[in-house]
């Protein structure tokens, strides 16, 4: 896992072979997880799937570069429902995603209460992923404000889709992050797959780039290709370095693919018309001689087996009991305040 220090290195255009292998490994792991989740849905082992295949080349570098930990010295991460890759790169276990898919009592994110892809990991400052689009952008200024006050290099990272930027909450984040003299260390990320469910970007946006919306607020902005992990890494390095050291906001727009459509509601079938970042990166690695086809196939096979085993375990885990609906309505301890 990269620490704050390693991400502070200025951007590099070429990866080391080591990092390339690590990124590739996590990309495959994520893709195999998503495919397993889709299979579970299709086999009736879950009611709904939504996830991030097509965003691995961005989400994995992001997860690797997060300064992971608990409390103000580390990054706070406000993600959305396509973020499994980021979380796997941070070290989350794929089996937990299967648990949420199958809504078992063992689901560590919600105890079988929430949809797939709605993680919550307080011990790593991963804010609960919620369904209402874009509200994370209204919440993010709060964690960032506490970090600004605390000092250090911890930042707040908030991510959402392109269509969601039409909600007022996106503007709220722009406004609250850029107040003069009270600028916040927020990295605002928009993963632009050019769709909101069925609605194409072109039909709803007057902006050429969403990132341009930051400019009126004096924010640094960039638009990067999120279909390539190396361009993602470079873009993230630059953005994170700025936010960590300047303690000011940065708006990063990232072009990504949506490889299995919006969600299970739209069929969850592979879309050949979209650029597949994994295929593309594998071609690059093979061509560069970093990994052979056989080695890459072995990676995939390993994860496929792992996930297939994991699915078997999860299949036998208990569902939550109906009587538990009354649990956790009110807290009796201030966990976020450090009470144990």
């Amino acid at each position, binding site marked *: 896992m990269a620490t704050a220090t390693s991400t502070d290195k200025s951007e590099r255009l070429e990866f080391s072979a080591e990092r390339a292998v690590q990124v590739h490994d996590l990309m495959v792991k994520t893709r195999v997880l998503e495919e397993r989740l889709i299979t579970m849905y299709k086999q009736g082992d879950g009611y709904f799937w939504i996830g991030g295949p097509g965003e691995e080349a961005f989400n994995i570098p992001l997860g690797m570069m997060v300064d992971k930990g608990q409390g103000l010295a580390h990054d706070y991460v406000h993600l959305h429902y396509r973020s499994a890759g980021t979380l796997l790169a941070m070290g989350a276990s794929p089996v937990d995603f299967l648990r949420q898919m199958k809504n078992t009592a063992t689901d560590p994110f919600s105890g079988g209460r929430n949809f797939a892809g709605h993680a919550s990991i307080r011990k790593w400052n991963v804010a609960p992923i919620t369904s209402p689009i*874009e509200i994370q952008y209204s919440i993010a200024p709060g964690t960032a404000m506490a970090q600004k006050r605390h000092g250090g290099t911890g930042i707040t990272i908030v991510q959402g889709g392109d269509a969601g930027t039409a*909600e007022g909450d996106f503007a709220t984040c722009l406004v609250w992050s850029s107040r003069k003299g009270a600028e916040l260390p927020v990295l605002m990320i928009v993963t632009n797959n050019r769709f909101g469910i069925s609605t194409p970007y072109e039909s709803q946006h007057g902006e050429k780039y969403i990132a341009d919306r930051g400019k009126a607020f004096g924010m640094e902005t960039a638009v990067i290709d999120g279909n390539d992990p190396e361009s993602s890494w470079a873009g993230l390095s630059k953005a994170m370095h700025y936010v960590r050291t300047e303690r000011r906001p940065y708006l990063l727009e990232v072009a990504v693919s949506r490889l299995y459509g919006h969600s299970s509601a739209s069929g969850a079938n592979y879309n050949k018309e979209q650029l597949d970042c994994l295929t593309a990166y594998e071609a690059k690695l093979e061509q560069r001689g970093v990994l052979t086809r056989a080695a890459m196939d072995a990676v995939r096979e390993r994860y496929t087996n792992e996930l297939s085993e994991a699915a078997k375990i999860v299949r036998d885990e208990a569902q939550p009991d109906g009587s538990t609906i009354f649990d956790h309505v009110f807290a009796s301890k201030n966990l976020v305040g450090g009470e144990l």
Partner: protein
Amino acid sequence: MASLIQAIRMALHVGEERLGVTDIFGEDVGPPLGGVFTGSQGLRTAWNSPLDERGIIGTAIGLAMAGQKPVCEIQFCDYIYNTIDLLKVAGNTYWSTNGDWNLPMVCITPVGAGIRGSIYHSHSFDATATHIPGWKIVMPSNPLDAYGLLLSAIADPNPVLYLAPKALMRTKATLDELLPGEPADDKLLCKMIDAPLGDRSAWKPEWPPLETLFVPIGKAKTVRPGRDVTVVSYGRTLPLSVKAAEDAAAEGIEAEVIDLRSLAPYDWEAIKESVLRTNRVIFVNEETEITNFGEHLIRRTVDELFYHLHAPPKLVAGAFVPGIGLADNLERASVPQRETILDAIRESARHEP
């Protein structure tokens, strides 16, 4: 025989062609999808909005002001809660301006549980909605009412909220409740008006020769007569209540079931007339149970009919918890089930005053 969602779509079509509807809009409402429940496929005036519920309600208000007839959609009522201020404005404009501006707009939103929708696709909205003055509110439980209430909503000069029970979207009409003009053959109807899978860019629906039918706003419907206890419900819990009444009948209890259909204004006369006969009443809905519209109906009942009651009036509603959990056990424990309603019917009917 139309399904409930097809009935909505046909009403929107008739609205466009004969009642002056100018805009049917919301997230994914226009082509290619035509609504996440297919409710706006093939409609001439349907268009996709930005992903912005506040913009949707605001624009509907503006369109209404400009003499248009907008029908807007909030994709799921779970996502309507950032617009309550605007809904209140829509509801208070005619009053605040002392009768200067009326706002003829319809807002459709799918509601309720029953589809394993987890925390954010299971909300009910009737408690919050009935607390907002100035809106008419309807909630069908079958295709014919879905059709007739939507036409009435469109024709109304006021803001009308149309709550569409998600879990009943595919409920079919019965043969004696055909929509005026629709073909009895449901396969044929699907062929005529359902968009094909895949590329739809060249597709056009073939609308049956529909007639208007107005189910009056404010009129309940007794869907099952009975002498022993009155059950008042609407939306998804209405058919559940009917089933529970059938179960009760097997035990010799005859429950009368009233489909309220309109929540604002609501048909108090129908409730009263029934309770005066049965002397026992149960209100059933799936909203969370604190500050629930059924509690208003209970209050009115004890206000006006206290000495006619042979048992305490009952509410069967959703558990007061922060969400409906995804797992089947959680959903079942959170919202009324056939058995819970049956229990309430039994308890009320067998209660000795």
